[in-house]
Every structure is written in C-alpha cells, then in structure tokens.
C-alpha cells in the first residue's frame, strides 16, 4: 500500500497490531475518566482509521461487536452504539478510496461527519424515544467531535508508524 503522505510504499500491516490497537482503544474507553460527554471516543477513532486503511480486515461486523461492548459499558440502550458504529464503519469503507489519498488535515475534515454521527446518535435516539431533547448533550457531542478531529493526525501517526519502518536497516551505515 502506498503512503500518500510521503509517496513511499508501506510495509504490509500486521493483523496482531490491528487487534491490539483496537483492544487498547477499548481499554482507553473503559478508563474511569468521569461522566463527561466530551471525553473523546478512542475506539471510534481507531475503528474508523482501520476501516479506511485496512477495510478488508476491519469492517462493519467488528464495528458492530465493539459497539455492543460500548453499549453494555455505558448502560445505554442495547444497540445504540452498535448501530452508529456500524453505520460509521460502512460510510468509512465506502469513502476510503477518496479519503486515503488526501493529506491528513483534509482527511480529518472528511471524517468529521462520521464522528458527528457517532457522537450525536445517542441524544437523538433518546429524543425520539422520550420526546425531550438535551441541547447540552448535543453541544458536548459536537465538542467531542472536535477533539476527535484534532486527535486524527496523532492517530494516523501512531497507527501507521509500524508500517512506515524502513525495510532494510543498515546498522553499519556511516553518518
């Protein structure tokens, strides 16, 4: 796969690294950071990253399974996160050819609607079910999206780092 940022060909991805990174993102989400809606959803960051870069390995089904875990953790209605994660994953897989060729900053802009979808889905569903709308929940959802967008370059850097390693390291290379 080509790294569109530098033009080099990337190393093949390690499946174990994908699963470990998703697991770490899940653990980060489970950290007791307090009940604030603006705490970024690390899992959705990692998930959408892998959906865009390795859509053959990580697709809608893994998004659904991870969303189910988040539903139970959040003591939310079963299926809210599962559905929104799968929808975001589907969109990410659909758009991946377009997004992957862009520079990282415009990538972040193109992914904003996906983050927004995931962040605003629970308040909107509660609005549908109970009839009351929480403007502050929606506001903090937008804030969460902003933070996640700012974290996107960092995510790209961390998760692509193993593939950006050089193939041959010449230890005796003169400086």
């Amino acid at each position, binding site marked *: 796969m080509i790294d569109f940022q530098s033009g080099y060909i990337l190393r093949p991805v390690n499946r174990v690294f994908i699963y470990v990174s998703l697991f770490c993102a899940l653990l980060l989400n489970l950290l007791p950071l307090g*009940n*604030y*809606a603006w705490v970024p959803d690390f899992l959705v960051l990692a998930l959408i990253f892998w959906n865009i870069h390795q859509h053959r390995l990580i697709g809608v089904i893994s998004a659904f399974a991870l969303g189910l875990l988040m539903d139970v*953790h*959040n*003591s939310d209605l*079963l*299926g809210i996160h599962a559905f929104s994660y799968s929808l975001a994953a589907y969109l990410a897989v659909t758009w991946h050819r377009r997004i992957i060729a862009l520079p990282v900053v415009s990538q972040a802009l193109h992914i904003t609607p996906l983050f927004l979808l995931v962040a605003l889905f629970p*308040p909107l569903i509660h609005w549908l079910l109970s009839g009351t709308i929480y403007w*502050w929940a929606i506001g903090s959802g937008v804030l969460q999206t902003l933070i996640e967008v700012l974290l996107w370059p960092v995510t790209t850097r961390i998760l692509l780092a193993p593939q950006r390693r050089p193939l041959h390291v010449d230890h005796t290379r003169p400086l």
Partner: protein
Amino acid sequence: MDFRFHTLDPVRNQVNWLLRPLEYVSLTPRLLFDWTSNYFTTRGELERENQSIKLRQSELALLATQGELLLAENQNLRQLLNFQKQLTYKTLPVEILFNPPNPISQRIVINRGSNDGLKAGNPIANDAGILGQVVRIYENSAEVSLLEDRDFAVPVQVARNGLRAAVFGTGRSNPLELRYLPVASDLEVGDILLTSGIDGTYPPGFAVAMITRIERNLEKNSSNVFCVPIAPVNRYRHALALLYETQVDAKPAPQKSSSNPTGPTDNAGFAPGRRQTRTKGMQ
C-alpha cells in the same frame, strides 16, 4: 426492543460477563494511584484521623445503645396498639466501581450483584442519606440510578412537620424538584426531606434532600420547590445497600406470609409488616 420489552437482557448479561473483567483492568491505574497515595500518608495524619474516628465511634456507640432501646420500646408500643410492625432490613457494603460515560442518565456501577442477595429495586445509601436505587442487576455487579437521574422519584416527608411529597430528579447536576404541591403548603428553605416509606421501596427515615429554593406561583396554585441531595452523590467510593423487602402491593396481610425472611430481629409469632391501606388500630 430494548426500550419497550427488555427482550435483549440475556444478550446484555452475556456481553457484560465478557466486559466486566476488562473494566476491572481499566480501573487499575486509579487503584494504583490510590494505593501509592495511601501508602505515603504521614504518621501524623494517620494519628489525627485515628483520634477523630475513635471519638466518632464512641459517640455512635452511645447513640446506638439509645437507638436499640427506642427501637425495642417502639416495637412494643406498636404491638400494644396492634399497629403494623416496622420492617427491618439488612445492610450490605458495596464499592462504587465507576460512572458509565453516558451523558443522559446518571448511573453508577457497584461491585455487588444478585449473587450477594441484592435485588433490583434495593435502595443504596451512604452515611449521610439515600444515594439511589438498583435498576439493573447482574450476577456480580449492578447498576444504580442516582437521585439526580431524570424522573427518578422518591417519596419523602418533611422532617419538620411530616408533610408528604415526592422528590423528582431532573437530570444531571440540576437541582431536585418537589412536584405536585399547592401554594399554601408549609415549606421553608432549609427543611430536610426524609424518606416516608410509603412506596415500600425505601425504608422510612433516611435523609434525602434539603430545600434550597421555593418559588410560589399564586395563579397556578403550584409551587416550584428545588432541593439538593444531602448525600454527596458523586463523591464517595463506598456505600451501603439496604436489603429491604420491597413491598409494592397494598393488600392486607394473609396468614401464610408469617415467615418473613427479612431482618435478624424478626420474631416468628408476629404478623409481619405487610403494608395496608389502613392500619388495624384505626377502624
């Protein structure tokens, strides 16, 4: 489906069984921090704390003997008057694990579940007052809805004059509300609200909230009363679950229910405290 029929509860239980160990793992950084900060407390601090705890303990021991006496006297008088016997309850110490990051509801997850005898509907309190109620139960953990949760209602009684009302939660970090009260009701800022025990879910006499603001609306003959919870809802790590036999019916007590399992002080000869619409003594 989950909202209306609760058909997905088995799925939720299975996923929870899978997820709970991971949640415990993610709690370890906080635990490590707590341990280290505990370990490095100074000797003077410990001594001071020890002294204050000893003082408090002696006070409480004195009060406890008095309380025992009063309880026995009260039960005897109730028996003389042929009143309902007060229900007794057991307590179970619980640890608050974490606060699920859900902006819409206010819940906590505790480390005791149905294996420890906890039931859905049991109230959770700490030393100051009522914190909330168990709303979803797993085998080794449970979810507790806090007082601040939206539309969470507790039947209360004003401690000063015994006026009955119901306190409602209005969502996170908003003051609690006392609804359905006429303008002329005798309320003052600073009144303490205790659980009345009318619903049979909460044992009577636990502090719930304190009135902070009253807005009287003469035209609508209603008053908006705002209060704050007495127990610091989001502060402590430990609490007590009250294993209280939840009574939801108002039927008279049948004979066969004399084997009431609640409470250590329950005598088998008594008619157990089954809630009635009118007590036997006042025909």
